[in-house]
């Protein structure tokens, strides 16, 4: 690669931040429309005229920092709110525009345009999240642009694009090693011979973990992902036509825990883990089969996908203490560890004292679950002139079915001589039930071009049939069949002011269905969401500002161990609050300064202001709410977030520095719950990445996550204070051909 090429890449690095990246242009042999049906946001360098906030993070951008952690990737997207948990992003909590980030359950998560959550309707908590390292693009849709993607439309949608089959023989290998036993091996190879193309893409990531378990033990993880794609091009002179099969397998074993620390212990050593969590283990497997058919020409195209995802997990972890004459919960103990009531429990948790009472026994809960998600979806793009106006119709449907089968069990342990030892009692059954949903979705979008105005009308229909069955012995009579139908309209427009600028607006209805288990007394979440924005795009600068307002008629949350809620016998049970509203400003700006013929300085600034508050007073048992007054703000929603990304690119090297600031966040909204009045700490994280090109020999790179080694309490959930990742260095080598 000559120096001009390096310079070109550097410029691309600067210009393609977030938008307009077509990483596949140079490699794909498939029609451009097909690529766009997988990766949705447009690829050209022109002003984007779709209404609605949508952000693309392309492969070049993803390669800049090579993050394995989705949280670190999404922090630079305005309007995203995140609650960190394990420091590695293994089970992320992502929300958009104030939607609760808990297990990303309120956003619609897709891979290659297909729902990828384990059971998006029946149990939307995304305990499976695709490996970010294998993605070549990420797309975030908010506002009315999200109406096309359901079932959840209150917040938005996240689509992750895997590597496409290359036109010519192409492959790469990426090896990295770092602190805390971090190692990454990533490789892919693909080619197209005539009409047949294939790709194999594999990633392995492992780490020993940055936490230190009292008494020793593993706190790390081991993840694998292998994906293959096979494609056949049936195109002729009239139509482009592609069929593709995608097969993927992934697994993870992570010695993670829901147990954090007391604030005092956190101050002494943020990376400590109590001995009682020594057996905690998440162990899952995920399989995916997907068939895609694409046919189209200049006037229309149809993309049809048939998919099946299977996910099986065992999540064995400390659940709490055995209930008895004294009933307490871990969050209470870690919040007030010194009271006479809690001190004995704290001493057991930390191994300072042996279990001396039945109610001081540790309960480990293995939440074994099997999920599947399958369906067929098809969408049509049709370009017609109707009544003298250009129309771009986009019509689609999806027949989807998913299921979660819970087979939870618990085992009792004692702390004996500082070790976790089984008490020999039999394993007890916990939640034993099945939730299943069959949903038909349809959507219709019509974008009319009326002079300078592009006006889009949208309508989404969700027709959900949900079944719940308690599978425990003698509980055959505990079942429910529920159907929910809803139409969700949207209206948006983009008015082009000039070649470089325009303004847009949008309004759409937000919706989150209830789970099959919930009685009809628990209402769906319903909102009307508004946005107003302006966009500027020229050769060196891009600017987008959006004001949004979400008027939520009925906010809904659900109980889970990850929210540190005592769910009793109602795991994943749901709560209604009442009216709430979220108002915010999203601002993103980028510009590239050409310092000289050899050096460029790309800068990205992303700022989000969000204020979400309840508009009605209520009392709730939900641990993040409590006794709420009008005006109380929503939990885990930072008021201000700022990301500044500065790079320096030369012919054969580049350095990038990204700085993120996240305001403190409330751990609970109202009064009289355990974490009332408690906030996370404001956090500033700086990450550094540098790479050096070795000509034909590939390139080497160096990364330093959390340069300042600043660790704050990012959350006190599920149980106790937990840190962000400490300073972690890694070095890697990439070779591609």
């Amino acid at each position: 690669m000559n120096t001009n090429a390096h310079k070109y890449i550097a410029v691309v690095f600067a210009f393609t931040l977030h938008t307009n990246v077509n990483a596949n242009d140079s490699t794909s042999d498939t029609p451009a429309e097909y690529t766009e049906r997988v990766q949705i946001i447009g690829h050209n360098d022109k002003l984007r005229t779709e209404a609605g906030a949508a952000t693309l993070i392309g492969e070049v951008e993803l390669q800049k920092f090579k993050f394995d952690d989705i949280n670190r990737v999404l922090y630079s997207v305005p309007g995203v709110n995140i609650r960190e948990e394990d420091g590695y992003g293994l089970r992320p909590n992502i929300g958009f525009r104030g939607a609760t980030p808990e297990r990303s359950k309120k956003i619609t998560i897709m891979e290659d345009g297909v729902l990828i959550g384990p059971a998006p309707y029946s149990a939307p908590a995304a305990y499976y999240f695709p490996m970010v390292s294998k993605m070549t693009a990420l797309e975030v849709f908010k506002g009315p642009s999200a109406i096309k993607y359901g079932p959840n439309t209150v917040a938005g949608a996240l689509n992750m694009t895997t590597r496409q089959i290359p036109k010519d023989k192409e492959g790469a290998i990426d090896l990295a090693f770092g602190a805390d036993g971090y190692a990454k091996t990533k490789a892919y190879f693909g080619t197209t011979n005539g009409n047949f193309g294939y790709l194999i893409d594999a990633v392995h990531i492992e780490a020993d973990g940055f936490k230190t378990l009292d008494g020793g033990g593993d706190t790390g993880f081991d993840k694998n992902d292998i994906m293959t794609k096979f494609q056949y091009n049936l195109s002729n002179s009239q139509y482009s036509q592609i069929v593709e099969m995608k097969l993927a397998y992934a697994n993870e074993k992570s010695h993670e825990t829901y147990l954090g620390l007391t604030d005092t212990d956190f101050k002494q050593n943020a990376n400590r883990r109590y001995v009682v969590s020594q057996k905690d283990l998440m162990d899952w497997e995920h399989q995916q089969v997907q068939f895609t058919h694409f046919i189209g020409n200049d006037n229309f195209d149809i993309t049809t996908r048939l998919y099946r995802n299977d996910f099986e997990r065992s999540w064995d972890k400390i659940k709490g203490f055995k209930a008895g004459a004294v009933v307490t919960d871990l969050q209470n103990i870690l919040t007030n560890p010194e009271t006479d009531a809690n001190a004995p429990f704290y001493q057991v948790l930390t191994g300072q004292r042996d279990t001396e009472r039945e109610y001081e026994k540790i309960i480990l809960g293995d939440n074994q679950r099997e999920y599947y998600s399958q369906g067929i979806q098809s969408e049509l793009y049709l370009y017609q002139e109707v009544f003298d106006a250009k129309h771009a119709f986009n019509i689609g449907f999806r027949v989807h079915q998913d299921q979660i089968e819970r087979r939870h069990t618990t085992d009792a342990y004692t702390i004996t001589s500082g070790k976790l030892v089984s008490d020999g009692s039999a394993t007890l059954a916990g939640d034993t039930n099945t939730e299943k949903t069959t949903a038909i979705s349809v959507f219709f979008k019509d974008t009319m071009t009326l002079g300078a105005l592009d006006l889009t009308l949208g309508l989404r229909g969700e027709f959900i049939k949900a079944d719940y069955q308690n599978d425990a012995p003698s509980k055959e009579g505990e079942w429910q069949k529920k159907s929910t139908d809803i139409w969700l309209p949207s209206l948006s427009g983009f008015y082009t002011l000039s070649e470089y600028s325009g303004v847009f607006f949008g309004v759409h209805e937000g919706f989150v269905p209830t789970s099959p288990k919930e009685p009809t007394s628990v209402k769906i979440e319903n909102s009307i969401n508004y946005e107003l924005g302006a966009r500027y795009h020229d050769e060196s600068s891009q600017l987008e500002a959006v004001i949004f307002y979400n008027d939520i008629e009925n906010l809904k949350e659900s109980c889970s161990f990850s929210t540190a809620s005592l769910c009793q016998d109602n795991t994943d049970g749901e709560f209604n609050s009442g009216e709430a509203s979220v108002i915010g400003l999203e601002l993103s700006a980028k510009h590239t300064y050409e310092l000289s013929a050899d050096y460029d300085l790309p800068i990205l600034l992303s700022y989000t202001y969000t204020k979400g508050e309840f508009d009605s007073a209520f009392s709730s048992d939900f641990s993040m709410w409590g006794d709420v007054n009008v005006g109380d703000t929503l939990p885990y929603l930072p008021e201000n977030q700022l990301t500044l990304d500065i790079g320096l690119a030369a012919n054969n090297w580049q350095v990038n520095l990204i700085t993120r600031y996240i305001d403190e966040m409330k751990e609970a909204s109202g009064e009289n719950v355990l974490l009332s009045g408690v906030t996370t700490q404001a956090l500033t994280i700086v990450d550094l990445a540098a790479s050096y090109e070795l000509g034909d020999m590939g390139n080497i790179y160096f990364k330093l996550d959390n340069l300042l080694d600043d660790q704050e309490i990012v959350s006190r959930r599920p149980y106790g204070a937990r840190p962000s990742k400490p300073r972690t260095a890694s070095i890697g080598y990439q070779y591609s051909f």
Partner: protein
Amino acid sequence: MSVNINHTALSIAIVAGLLVSACGESTSSSSGESFGTSLATTPNPAPNPSSNFNQQALLENITDNIITPVFEQFATVSATQIPEIAAYCKMEKDIVLGNATTEQVNATRDNARTAWRNTMNVWQQAEVMKVGPLTDNEGLLRDKIYSWPVVNSCSVDFEVVNFKAGVVNGQPFNIAQRTPSRRGLAAIEYLLFNEQLNHSCMTSTQPENWDNQTDGYRKIARCEFALEAARDVNNSAKELITAWSGNNGYASTLKAAGSIGSQFSTELEAINLISDGLFYLDTFTKDGKLATPLGLQANSCGSQACPDVVESVYAHHSVTNIENNLLAFQKLLTGKTGTGFTHYLIDVGDPDTADSMSTDVQLAIDGVQSYQNSLADALVNNEAQVTQTHADVKQVTDRLKIDFITSLSLKLPATSAGDND
């Protein structure tokens, strides 16, 4: 163009109309007979047409004739305790001044101890009646009166010093703001019955200079804090009466169950709360007071008989406590002279459970009343007797958890569900 504009306007109007009209959401469901977690929707068990039982009578009898008298009696005996302890304190001061004899001190101390026992006897009956104000705020009022098994003699030692100083953490000492394990009947037991005058703290922080004080100083200090704690217990008893009685009290709320405007949409919901209280016999009496010292459940002696972990370590009142738990359970079960749960069981066609539970609880009472020594002594010298008591109580609680709950369509309390019994 006009057609175009009309077309656009029509489309916008449709969308705007849909937005304003909340977009036609509809939900419907059907469910199995036992679906739903609320007792509000649980059908009542089929009644016996020839029976004159009714749920309202059960609620009225249990509240008015069983629970209310116990709570009121507790307010009385806890008040009686105050002057008895005050008299003992005065005598401890007098003896230091040479104005009293050891016999006089012992006599007043015994009177104070008797007053505590009388108070505890009533409270142990109230323990089986934990409903409403005694379960609110995670049982805070109950814990303020009696926090067992969360007890901490070292903390009480600190409180004695704090009370003597009149200051804690730079603020005037106020027992009402102290945590439950530092006050209540368990603290008074330690203060009145513990013969060891040195502090009991094994921790790194200990009450300063306590062990260096004279015996008289320490006895007076402990007695004065016992007096303060007794006043506090009586205040809590009054708080309980206030919350329980009167037109707006919880007793009225229970009795109004099923009526329009009641917080309980059915009588069965209120009955289930009283049923939850009965499970004290399972969790506390059977497990905490018997299985734990027997070593059937975890204890600090390595799961063997362990006299140090009985309920009443200092006053050796454990057996009487168990007896009072059983007596209270019996009253609630049989309704004494009025309508009780046995009548309800008969009404729903389960006289076997009514009879067997009545018999079993009487057997357990008889067994407990046959103890000649303290529970701690029995654990050392006659473990079989304690094992038998445990078996007797378990016989009752096993039926409670299965037959009783099933026949009356009640729900188990969350803390009792899924145990290893």
